[in-house]
């Protein structure tokens, strides 16, 4: 058997020079320090993305993206298709864990200042992927065409419509008309299964290539130290990665089996919004903040102000590598930590407030 594998390897090596790749893997080391644990969240996020692609393709085999059939087709998946309940629940749970893991990954990169030169592009692609992830969540939420999804999409697209100048056309574009209808479902379905995955894949490839090319970042303090410890990427780090992935998959299975995702009731455009309606947890902090802004602040509409503030904050956050000059120069920048802690506390507090209200 070994001789045969060797022949196959030689055949490939002669043509595409695998040897170089193997030598590259062999030279790749992962820094070991007290913050090393955060390195794993990128890999976990990647794994959850793979799960989403796999379960998403499986769901596509039976899902019907139309106003009349969407809800019924998911009922069919959950009651008639073998393990359909499991596949759908895993897709829903993994979507949420994906956002959570990506957010943890983002904050850890932020606090470790890993976005600093030369990794600005890695940060940018990562942030864009997180925004796309939110888009995945928002578009996927509508696909079961149930009551909650219907009203969440009405509210969400209505907020987009508040944005000055571009808002109204944007809302029409998203809804495919004046109201949330079957046309909206068709669009969201297309975004969710074609447009977003395509864009995401391009960003992901750039992101991963850069991580391989530049190696893992070390926190600035440790970078200056003399006795730096490392671990070979292959096989040591990779095996740890894979064991963690196994644990994540088992957690997903447990969640999907013991806390199966609800389907709710089919959307009815002529029914009142149910009490206690709220967006997905990762939008809650923004949703809750909007509730506290008065309807008019001086001459500005409250909603417009809220969206403007969140938009500006998002943009500043996205562009950190370009305005955090001190870290780039190799100096300590405590302001970054204070801002980060402030943002983290704000998001946690308002998410909790949104949850209990």
């Amino acid at each position, binding site marked *: 058997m070994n001789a045969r594998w060797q022949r196959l390897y030689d055949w490939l090596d002669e043509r595409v020079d695998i040897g170089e790749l193997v030598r590259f893997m062999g030279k790749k080391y992962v820094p070991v320090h007290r913050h090393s644990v955060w390195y794993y969240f990128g890999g976990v996020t990647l794994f959850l993305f793979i799960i989403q692609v796999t379960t998403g393709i499986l769901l596509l085999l039976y899902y019907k993206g139309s106003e009349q059939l969407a809800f019924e087709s998911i009922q069919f998946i959950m009651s008639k298709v*073998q393990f359909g309940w499991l*596949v759908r629940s895993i897709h829903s749970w993994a979507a949420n864990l994906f956002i959570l893991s990506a957010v943890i990954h983002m904050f850890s990169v932020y606090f470790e200042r890993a976005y600093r030169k030369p990794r600005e592009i890695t940060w940018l692609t990562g942030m864009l992927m997180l925004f796309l992830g939110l888009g995945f969540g928002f578009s996927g939420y509508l696909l079961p065409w149930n009551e909650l999804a219907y009203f969440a999409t009405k509210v969400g697209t209505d907020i987009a419509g508040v944005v000055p100048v571009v808002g109204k056309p944007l809302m029409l574009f998203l809804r495919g008309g004046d109201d949330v209808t079957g046309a909206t479902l068709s669009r969201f379905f297309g975004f969710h299964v074609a447009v977003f995955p395509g864009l995401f894949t391009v960003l992901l490839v750039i992101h991963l290539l850069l991580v391989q090319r530049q190696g893992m970042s070390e926190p600035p303090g440790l970078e200056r130290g003399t006795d730096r410890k490392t671990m070979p990427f292959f096989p040591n780090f990779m095996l740890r990665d894979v064991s963690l992935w196994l644990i994540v998959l088992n957690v997903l299975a447990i969640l999907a089996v013991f806390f199966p995702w609800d389907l709710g009731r089919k959307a009815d455009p002529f029914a009142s919004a149910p009490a206690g309606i709220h967006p997905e947890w990762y939008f809650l902090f923004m949703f809750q903040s909007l509730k506290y802004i008065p309807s008019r602040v001086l001459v500005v509409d409250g909603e417009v102000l809220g969206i403007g503030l969140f938009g500006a904050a998002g943009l500043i956050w996205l562009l950190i590598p370009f305005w955090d000059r001190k870290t780039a120069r190799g100096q300590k920048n405590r302001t970054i930590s204070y801002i980060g802690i402030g943002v983290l506390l704000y998001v946690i507090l308002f998410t909790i407030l949104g949850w209990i209200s």
Partner: protein
Amino acid sequence: MRPHDGVTGLAPGAGTPGGEGGRRDFLKIALGAGALAWIAAVLYPVIAYLKPPRQAEVEVTSVKVGKLAAIEKDSGTIVRFGSKPVILIRSAAGDLRALSATCTHLDCTVQYRKDLGVIWCACHNGKYDLTGRNISGPPPRPLDEYRVIVQGDDVFVSRKT
């Protein structure tokens, strides 16, 4: 691996080269078996999921296709028989015949060609005569026959028993 390695490997004081090998082999087998069991546990639900569930279908034995007077002479019409198409032929002489409209070649639906006086499949130019016999082109066997029953003015098609 020698047969007794497993034994020495598990024995206390396994520090000898043979013992090390035994323990290593044991771990390798345990890990490999675990990985296999785990892959099976993932693949089984996925493969089961791929199998389309059987949709409950109403078993159709007979359908009413219309009034005799409404069926033209020298014509062929496709009628629904459960989920399958059936072609109802009325010859120039006026007798009725019902045949499966599914071409025996590759599953296309056939049609009546007035100009040729045959049943014709557009996909690969297969031809059947009006009794359903394959007379030209690729079809390997005749079309299945159904029974036509005329009760008063009503025409029924039923499965041949």
